């Protein structure tokens, strides 16, 4: 039911996206010393949204209006991040991975905060006094 409200859908998809990204970054860090491993990453959520809605966007009176996103957005395939390779063919740079991981955590926290605040509004609306 909550999925009918686009704000929940959007926040939920953003949180899932951050979770997927975090899982990929964890995999990169785990393989930081594996010869020949190529670092993987996902496009930003904003980029993923624009990739998804391109062509099939609904008509809106203003471009900033929320249109929601479908769950397809979290089927986007990871890509190999370009970068300098070590002599053993590994492209993981630990400092970069940790920085991206902090970014992913902040995105996740932000999405959960939006979700929680929307939930609070719903609760306030249905509260019986």
């Amino acid at each position, binding site marked *: 039911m909550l999925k009918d409200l686009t704000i929940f859908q959007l926040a939920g998809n953003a949180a899932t996206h951050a979770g997927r990204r*975090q899982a990929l970054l964890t*995999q990169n860090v*785990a393989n930081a010393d594996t010869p020949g491993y190529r670092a993987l990453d996902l496009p930003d959520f904003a980029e993923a949204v624009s990739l998804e809605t391109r062509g099939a966007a609904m008509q809106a009176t203003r471009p900033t209006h929320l249109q929601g996103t479908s769950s397809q957005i979290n089927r986007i395939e990871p890509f190999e991040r370009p970068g300098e390779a070590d002599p053993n063919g590994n492209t993981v740079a630990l400092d970069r991975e940790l920085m991206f991981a*902090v970014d992913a955590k902040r995105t996740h926290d932000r999405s959960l905060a939006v979700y929680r605040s929307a939930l609070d509004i719903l609760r306030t609306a249905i509260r019986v006094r």
Partner: protein
Amino acid sequence: MNEFSRALQVSSSAMHAQATRLRHVSENISNADTPGFRRKSVSFEAEVDPVSNLTLLRVGDVRQDQSDLTTVFDPQHPLADDNGQYKGSNVSLLVEIVDAREARRSYEANLKMFDQVRQMSSSLMSLLRK
């Protein structure tokens, strides 16, 4: 299985592998003065688990370093040959310390990711509270 538990599994496989590497390093260091000891090294392989489709870190074969053993001059040593020399180990302490430092850094990075994934999943769970 959701992304978070997958990430935790990958992290723990990597921590296990780094710990194994550190164990071999300490074996090498403790045997640095053992005559005839050859330095052991582990190799890492990215392995895709067929069930969960995760790229886990696996410790490959343990190999012995086949480089030349050092020659030590000590005529009093029970293993000394006619020239008063015996074969020591081929462990270089400097290499081992660097290897240990790298293993520790990678372990810490994995631990940090593990902790962060745990925090993210617990903040997700706290949505259910209240």
